[in-house]
């Protein structure tokens, strides 16, 4: 990549433990959780009263009353209220996009400091009234006379009163993300065994990272939780082999995706502190790593030309080319485990000579990724995946891994609904 005017430095991160849906955080709102994650970050880095360049983030499932979710959350912290804050939305890549674009602003000199992150709650999902009922209520609102209003309201039928929860299906295909992934996994011949192995590795790596104290300065407790409660340190391939498939069941014997090798629905929030080198030094803050570059990708998934969660494979090819890097130049790989098969399908695609030549237009395959460098401190299968909070979890984890390893690089891949995704490069300091 062309020389940028200055580095965007990752200073640190904070998240609340991720909780399985309808559990520990059942009564917490997105704003509660994001405020808590921000408060932890502010406390850790002494940002009380500080006016930052910007706070950006978002939530995938958001109440309409939370139109200014991030600003409202930031106002609930000791940050200077003159700190601008805004919402970003790119499905599961929301957090990564927020952090990436803030890093760009820092590089350009537009701002000197920023917090990027995200939050999501399944337990407090925005339930809305049906389209029919909303139409009638709006008609009644527009009515000029009591008679007109009554006439509109008289159209309400019992069936209109059923509340509607946000679906997990892709709007244009009606297929859930898991069903989409099942088609892709089948196409790439991803086996049940390799998915279960990846899931077990995720739990073991996360548990080991907790054990070693890695997360001590990355997590602050919330509502009685001090660690991700989806984690199963004693997970084993034998145990996982007993589970029945939950996605792609119409594939019969070829169905491979279970509740254990798919990410559970989770509540949680995360935040990452970024700054210019000068700003970090002036505030006597650590400089863990540089946020070097990031790339968005999108694929044509609607009629199945490409798998829903395969966009990062394309983004990676462009990003690596622009930076004149190969996979061999990376010390760590953080590939978001939406499903175990998502990680495996992306890696198979990068290994495939045909795919890399014919689809990505590369001279040779991007190559294989050494498993000992992959998600070394666990990923979403173990930690959980509160959609918009995942980017912040990954960036903070990877930056800390690279701290003290100047010039060593980390690779990030995050897939997202709507056939989109982001890849990013981080470099240790």
């Amino acid at each position, binding site marked *: 990549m062309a020389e940028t005017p200055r580095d965007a430095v990752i200073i640190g991160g904070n998240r609340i433990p991720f909780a399985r849906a309808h559990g520990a955080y059942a009564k917490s709102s997105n704003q509660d959780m994001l405020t808590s994650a921000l408060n932890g970050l502010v406390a850790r880095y002494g940002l009380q009263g500080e006016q930052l360049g910007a706070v950006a983030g978002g939530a995938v499932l958001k109440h309409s009353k939370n139109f200014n979710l991030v600003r409202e959350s930031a106002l609930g912290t000791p940050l200077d209220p003159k700190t601008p804050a805004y919402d970003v939305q790119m499905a599961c890549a929301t957090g990564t996009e927020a952090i990436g674009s803030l890093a760009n602003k820092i590089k350009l000199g537009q701002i000197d400091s920023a917090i990027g992150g995200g939050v999501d709650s399944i337990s407090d999902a925005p339930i809305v009234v049906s389209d029919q009922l909303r139409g009638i209520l709006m008609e009644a609102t527009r009515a000029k006379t009591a008679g007109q209003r009554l006439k509109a309201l008289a159209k309400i039928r019992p069936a209109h009163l059923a509340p509607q929860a946000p679906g997990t299906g892709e709007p244009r295909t009606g297929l859930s993300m898991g069903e989409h992934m099942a*088609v892709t996994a*089948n196409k790439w011949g991803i086996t049940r065994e390799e998915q279960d192995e990846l899931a077990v590795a995720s739990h073991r790596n996360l548990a080991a990272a907790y054990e070693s104290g890695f997360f001590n300065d990355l997590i602050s407790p919330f509502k009685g939780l001090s660690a991700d409660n989806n984690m199963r340190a004693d997970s084993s391939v034998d145990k996982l082999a007993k589970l029945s498939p939950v996605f792609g069941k119409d594939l019969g014997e070829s169905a491979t995706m279970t509740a254990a090798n798919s990410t559970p629905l989770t509540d949680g929030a995360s935040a990452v502190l970024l700054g210019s080198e000068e700003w970090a030094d002036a505030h006597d803050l650590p400089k863990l790593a540089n946020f070097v570059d990031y790339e968005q990708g999108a694929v044509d998934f609607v009629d*199945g030309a490409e798998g829903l969660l395969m966009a990062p494979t394309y983004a990676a090819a462009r990003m690596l080319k622009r930076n004149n890097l190969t996979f061999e130049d990376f010390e760590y790989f953080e590939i978001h485990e939406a499903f175990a098969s998502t990680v495996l399908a992306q890696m198979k695609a990068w290994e495939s000579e045909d795919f890399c030549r014919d689809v990505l237009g590369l001279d040779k395959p991007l190559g294989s990724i050494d498993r000992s460098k992959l998600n070394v401190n666990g990923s979403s299968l173990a930690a959980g995946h509160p959609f918009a909070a995942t980017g912040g979890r990954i960036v903070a984890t990877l930056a800390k891994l690279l701290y003290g390893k100047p010039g060593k690089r980390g690779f990030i891949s995050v897939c997202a609904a709507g056939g989109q995704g982001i890849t990013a490069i981080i470099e240790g300091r």
Partner: protein
Amino acid sequence: MNEPIRIPLPKLSRLYQKAGLDAVRSKLASAGRLTAFPEQSVVADHPGISDDQAEQYRRLLGGEAFDKAHRLSLPSVLLHIAGFPVQMALMSRDAFPLPLMGMVHLSNEVLHSQPVGAGTPLQILARADHFAPHRRGTQADVIIEIYPAGMDIATAGPADCLYSSTSRYLGMGTYLFPKEEGSSSPREDFTPPPKTALWTLGSDAGRQYAAVSGDYNPIHLSGVTAKALGQKRAIVHGMYLAARMLEGREPESAGHRWDITFEAPVGLPGKVAFAAEQVDEKTQQFVGWDPRKGRRHFSGKLALP
């Protein structure tokens, strides 16, 4: 062809009442033999599909708004809906030899030559053709041709036709030809391809499409009304499936051809697994099936100009 008979745009509710009566008194002249194929066509003026109806259709099927700047051309199935009452009027004429009740929609083939926007007045012509034996009765093609209002149809050429559709129907149990013995063809094996979509149809899918199309055939409305007509449960309109198959794929400038062949009906509520496959640059093929039983509901094709 004889000069078409000009009729006022029919009301579907009246035609369904008449169909009920026809079901009671046999349409056949005597001994179930066809005396003459009807050569008569009918034509009706249509004031144009209203903005309201186009919006209702869009709310049901999805897609971008008909803003008349970037999206003006109405979907093919909406033109079929406009032509359907005329088609029904032809089929409920005494000269039409098959009873309307018990008629099964087998397939549909469409050439959508020109874009038609909401509010454009039209002439809709319906005629019947290709009566042929079928192992379960008699099949017939009912053809709809849509022309601009005011055009002299007698001198109109194929280039003047905005839209033409051939609906193949089966008059179940009405044998106008000698019954063919042992002609039942073995069912073709079907292996579902990887699905690209899943349609979840509620128990009200038939009522919703009826509200947009005006096709209140009781077989689509509820379990009770469907049972009265011999179905186990309500089934969705075949053209609703065609509409979903085509949604988002029809070109704004028209000129496309498409077809759909119906197999097992879709019971309500139900799920339809769907796969779209690119055959070549201009052609897509589609198939819909029951994700549990693996039975095929329909297959179709879309060819861009």
